């Protein structure tokens, strides 16, 4: 009972500080209230009217003027204009200026059609009304479709966006691939390193461990930018390669996938080493010795005895590295090229630069889904690993 009470603050903390804001943000990916709640009369007046039936009826335009005046008074016309401009580029000032005129009573004459269309002819565009009608309702699939390079066709079905606008599926695939490669590289490099740390005499073991941890305490930005200097055209690596005659001309090393892997592996390696060392310390050395003394070649002994025993460490380390790598964007931005950008950089772009939080949230949903799927995979792998390993004990 007491234990349960002690856990309550923690659960509340996670709920308030983490789950609630995340859920709120994710809800933005389907939220359409900034459009629907700002144009209630307009949507009511539209009813069954379609732009294909001809120009918008007087009742629709009058309702629009009323809605825009209200939005202006409520201070929400700016957001509305921004959202409509997202759907049809070039309409932002049309909406804001119409809202201003409506609020200041300049569109009060009847029929409103003449006054409105004379001052703001953009409202005669069928394309604009198609987008507005599509945006009715409290929920929208606009952002989720967009984050998958899909859109609604004029007929209402789902279709792929034109090739020159397809952006996110590639970026998603790339993000998963880069994270995967970084995880594999980290695992391969960490195995001998962790083994050396565990096998070394205690004093040396401590020194080596500190050397692994040291970069972890250094700013991520510093560690990333250093690689620009090391790998640049006239940097030490190229200078050494040219001086030793291995190369005639300096290689392009920086701003490539290669430099991205180098920087990410360097940053994430300590996490893998840490989880490997903690597992390896618990594996008795006699098992390997026993296998070797019974005549197994070293590789066979390692593969069949040591590897299964340290597998939980590899999996835990991989899970941490993979999950961290999925969210990277500053490192790819600084040391990667244009074809190495990861999905988080797009989330940051839409969150900070264009304030398109709907699309940012939709992309976050995908990132979260990838995370959940990979967590599930690691968990399943872990469960499978356990049975043979435990059977040997």
């Amino acid at each position: 009972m007491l234990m349960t009470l002690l856990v309550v603050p923690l659960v509340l903390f996670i709920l308030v500080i983490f789950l609630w804001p995340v859920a709120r943000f994710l809800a933005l990916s389907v939220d359409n209230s900034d459009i629907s709640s700002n144009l209630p009369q307009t949507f009511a007046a539209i009813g069954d009217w379609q732009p294909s039936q001809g120009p918008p009826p007087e009742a629709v335009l009058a309702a629009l003027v009323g809605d825009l005046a209200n939005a202006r008074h409520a201070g929400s016309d700016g957001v509305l204009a921004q959202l409509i401009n997202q759907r049809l580029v070039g309409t932002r000032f049309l909406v804001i200026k119409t809202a201003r005129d409506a609020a200041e009573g300049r569109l009060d004459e009847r029929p409103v059609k003449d006054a409105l269309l004379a001052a703001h002819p953009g409202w005669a565009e069928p394309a604009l009304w198609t987008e507005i009608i599509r945006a009715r309702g409290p929920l929208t699939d606009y952002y989720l479709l967009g984050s998958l390079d899909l859109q609604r066709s004029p007929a209402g079905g789902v279709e792929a966006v034109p090739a020159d606008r397809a952006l996110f599926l590639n970026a998603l695939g790339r993000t998963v691939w880069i994270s995967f490669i970084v995880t594999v590289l980290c695992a391969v490099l960490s195995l001998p390193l962790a083994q050396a740390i565990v096998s070394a005499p205690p004093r040396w073991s401590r020194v080596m461990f500190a050397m692994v941890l040291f970069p972890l305490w250094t700013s991520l930005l510093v560690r990333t930018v250093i690689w620009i200097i090391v790998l640049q055209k006239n940097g030490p690596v190229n200078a050494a390669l040219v001086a030793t005659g291995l190369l005639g001309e300096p290689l392009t090393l920086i701003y490539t996938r290669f430099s991205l892997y180098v920087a990410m592996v360097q940053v994430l390696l300590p996490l893998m080493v840490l989880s490997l060392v903690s597992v390896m310390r618990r594996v008795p050395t006699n098992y390997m010795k026993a296998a070797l003394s019974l005549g197994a070649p070293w590789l066979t002994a390692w593969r069949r005895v040591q590897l299964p025993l340290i597998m939980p460490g590899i999996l835990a380390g991989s899970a941490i590295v993979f999950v961290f790598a999925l969210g990277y964007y500053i490192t790819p931005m600084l040391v990667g090229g244009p074809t190495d950008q990861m999905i988080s950089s797009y989330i940051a772009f839409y969150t900070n630069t264009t304030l398109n939080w709907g699309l940012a949230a939709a992309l976050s949903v995908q990132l979260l889904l990838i995370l959940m799927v990979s967590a599930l995979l690691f968990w399943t792998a872990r469960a499978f690993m356990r049975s043979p390993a435990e059977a040997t004990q």
Partner: protein
Amino acid sequence: MLKFKHSLCLAAALAASVATARAADTITVVGWGGNWDKAYKEGVWDKYTELTGTKIVQEEWGGELAKVRAQVQSGSVTWDLISPEAPSVEIGCAEGLFVPLTPEITGDPSKYLPGTIMECGVASDTWATILAYNADAIQGEGPKSWADYFDVEKFPGKRGMLAQAQYTLENAMMADGVAPADVYTELRKPGGVDRAFAMLDKIKPHVVWWSSSTQAMQNLASGEVVMTDQYNARVTNDIVNEKKNYKIVWDAGFFYGTDMWSVVKGSPNEKAALEMLKWFSIPENQAGFSKLYAYGTGRVEAAEFVPEDWRKNLPTSPEHAKFGATYDTAFWVENKEALEARFKAWQAQ
């Protein structure tokens, strides 16, 4: 004669501001931080405080219009005078977040460079994105135009380029032979943007993209690139402080952009802030900033009050201003998101 006229106006204006400002006012001014804020404090605000007794508190922000929107809508405005980018002023003004400025405050609008005065703002700083090259890396004649910048046969070597559509499409159009003043007319035509992308296609393999100006200058210093686009003050800084052999090609044509001074609607010190803006609209007072920072301001004559050897670093100096054109904020406000997405897709192809 001209000088005499200025000093007369100046004396009259100074007398007016001293008479009307109340000594107890404190104005919260929100700028871009760092050396920019420092230049404003030492070059402009300290003088105003000395003159009127008005205290000025400086705060820093990153230009997020959403923050202003939140203050105005909640009715608790704590900022008086702020410096947003021109597109944000265009949006915010239309939304009613900023106080419209009358010629009584700003002075005669025709005395400003194009684009440096708007309904709700006057330029706080006018910066330019220019073509710069490393004269140590290019032997003989350097590039003279954006066409040269796009010509990798004439000038071998990589080019540094800002990794975004805004500013880059303009440079591509200039390289395609469009005069700066006509660039937006061409971009707005059907197929205009395609034309800019077609131009960029030609140079794509030779580009090293940058996202922060520090990175771009590092690439120029290390020889990773031989020329780059860049904000002019950044290049001047490295020429002056690090004695680099960089050249700015002003006559290749350049675009200038502005950050603005705007008064937040509902500001508790609206009157005092407007009074200060009125004082700031005098060219000599604006020049206080440009003397300490290689960006111009709004008034055409302001450059005249900057010493000649420093004036040559300003985009607004008479010898440079004729090669420049202003960024079209209305174009970018509406097209930014769509064009940046297309640009990113193009980059990743």
